[in-house]
């Protein structure tokens, strides 16, 4: 697919990039891993983790506002030179490939388990990837706009979810507090922190040069507010799931958030609408995968076959998912073991290298 010239993006569009990415990263993965580590204490882990992750976000924000290049890959090359820059970018690229595979399998698994149990998972993957290929064939501004629409729908759906589930809440499920021990709590906090790195990374998909001139000033505050909103939404999702299902029931299900949605009832009239409400899980993952694809395609060289990149990438990702993961439970155990290392080595390490170099060069510039 040929990428068209990037048009200008509004500040809200930029900020919403990590809203859907964040929710996609946690649905069926982050929350599932956290629940299996820290059970009903996961909401405490999420609160502490979100505070720490907001601090970590400052690193990404610093890079974003000091990036004078078109994208993160160009910035790496300008900071470290072509060869080392290419190696660092390769780390990022490989991490995105693995994360895309994990997100794709997670979404496929969800649809396969809860909606289409009789359907071959590869067909579900094909349907998802067709959408992704189409979206990622567009320019960045169009991808961001699609995500913006999804994000508004998400926020409305989440608000409806909370209204319809509030009557099912049982506060006794929060007790006993810290029953899993401090080490589990720390693990869970760490997990939240590490998983939040990927959505924050999505911010760097754009550079400040892409933002509409008139909105550049307010971009920083819009991003800050959205980061806080995103973390609050994620904490609420975790908390509501615990309050509805309780720690023992949560551990039974692969997608506890969806099972909690099944309890939805609004004024005793609107019931059994979990499939409609669960649309936001689908939208988030689609948006997130589109960003990941855009990132990956940006890394690849500008060759004649560039228009086929998204299809080639799709095939590669389908092959990886087929080789690595076979079904939901084994996927969760593999992903929970290795995803953290993929993020730490593939994303955090390059980002810290970029951050350190950028800071040094900025200081030098100031001195000179």
């Amino acid at each position, binding site marked *: *697919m040929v990428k068209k010239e990037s048009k200008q993006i509004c500040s809200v569009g930029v900020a919403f990039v990590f809203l859907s990415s964040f929710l996609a990263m946690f649905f069926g993965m982050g929350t599932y891993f956290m629940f299996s580590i820290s059970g009903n204490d996961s909401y405490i882990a999420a609160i502490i983790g979100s505070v720490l992750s907001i601090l970590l976000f400052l690193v990404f924000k610093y890079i974003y506002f000091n990036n004078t290049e078109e994208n993160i890959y160009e910035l790496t090359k300008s900071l470290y030179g072509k060869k080392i820059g290419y190696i660092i970018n390769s780390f990022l690229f490989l991490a995105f490939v693995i994360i895309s595979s994990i997100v794709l399998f997670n979404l496929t698994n969800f649809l396969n*388990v*809860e*909606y*289409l*149990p*009789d*359907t*071959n998972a590869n*067909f579900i993957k*094909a*349907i998802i990837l*067709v959408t992704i*290929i*189409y979206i990622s*064939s567009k320019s960045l501004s169009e991808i961001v706009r699609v995500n913006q629409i999804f994000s508004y729908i998400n926020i409305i759906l989440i608000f409806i979810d909370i209204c319809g589930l509030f009557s099912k809440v049982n506060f*006794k499920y929060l*007790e*006993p507090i810290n*029953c899993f021990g401090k080490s589990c709590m720390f693990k869970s906090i760490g997990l939240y922190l590490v998983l939040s790195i990927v959505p924050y990374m999505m911010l760097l998909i754009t550079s400040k040069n892409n933002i509409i001139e008139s909105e550049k000033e307010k971009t920083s505050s819009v991003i800050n507010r959205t980061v806080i909103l995103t973390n609050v939404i994620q904490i609420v999702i975790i908390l509501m799931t615990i309050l509805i*299902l*309780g720690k*023992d*029931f949560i551990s*039974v299900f692969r997608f506890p958030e969806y099972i909690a949605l*099944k*309890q939805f009832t609004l004024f005793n009239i609107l019931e*059994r609408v*979990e499939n409609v409400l669960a649309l936001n899980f689908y939208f988030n993952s689609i948006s997130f995968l589109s960003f990941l694809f855009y990132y990956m395609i940006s890394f690849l060289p500008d060759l004649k076959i560039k*228009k086929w990149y998204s*299809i080639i990438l799709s095939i590669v990702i389908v092959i990886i998912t087929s080789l690595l993961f076979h079904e939901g439970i084994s996927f969760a155990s593999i992903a929970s073991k290795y995803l953290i290392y993929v993020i730490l080595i593939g994303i955090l390490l390059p980002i810290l290298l970029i951050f350190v170099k950028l800071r040094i060069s900025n200081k030098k510039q100031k001195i000179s």
Partner: protein
Amino acid sequence: MKKYIVILLILVIIFNGLTGIRELTDLAIVKAIGIDMSDDGEIIFTAIVTDTSSKEKVNSGDVYSSKGSSVQEAARNMVDISPKKLYIAHLETLVISEEIAKEHLENSLDFFIRDNEGSNTFYLFVANEHSAEEIINVINEEKVDMVSFLESTQKYKGDANLQTLNDVVKGILEDGTQMTANSMSIEDKKILIDDMAYFDNWNMKGYLTKQESILYNMLLNHTQFFITSIGEGDDLIVAEVTSCKTKYSINKETKNCIDIKLNINANITQTGKNIKLNDAESIESIQKTIEEDINEKINNFYKKIKEEYKVDILSLGNLLYRKKNKLFDNPNYLEELDINVQTKVKISNQGGVKKVW
């Protein structure tokens, strides 16, 4: 590129979209299911399939029965006698035989918990002294709307509750909690919601009495309305409880005692000729009589739970667990645990009648 995407979409639809389709008319919508175990250890699966073609037959349908080595196999074998595949998303009632409840509940319920179509919000019943198949047949013949029937019993009698399968499974999984389930039997070819069954983990142990079922539902806030009678003949007091709220806390002085506080609002609906309701004092005295009576009933019930049933159906252990009480570490905590019941009754309505006769 667009044409490739279109081709791909068409391929996806051709190769898959139409093969898995299930038309509404092809669904055998199941309203109630009964599960028994045959003498040779096979599962007998009985289902009422709703007749969607007739508006008059809203609460009835056709009963099908099949056998298999598992619940899933038995359900699938139904295709031999009914051409449609069962669709259990609208299941309202699941009736299990006593044998299943006593020995095979875990394996049988697993099928329903795993099922992705249903929401597990149907009601579970134990077939008391009858097979589940018999009960299912009577439900269908008598066109019983089980949901309304259960709701009425819970609302006006208080000896049944509205716990769904999810609640029941939660009860089993939660620390320091044992579950109960409603039971059903047949009397004069009519369906009867009978005494509640109590369980020890996944195994049914026995039945509570009617009175105990009411006390159980009252203590677990499962019911708001029930009738309590004190004395007899000329000393009779009949009170209709209109609201009941129970709160639990661990006694601050003795850590192996749980304080149970009940706040009850009641109406006097019938009295014997010796009972006067003419002034505030007499009403207060009746309130006290009801309080003492309920306290005594609860204490006797708890004594029976401790000594005879030996199963923590009141979830007192769960409170100990949640409050990190050390007593919970003892597997026989129930033997050492006492209760202190404090009932507060308020008579808000004496029927607007001054007794002058």
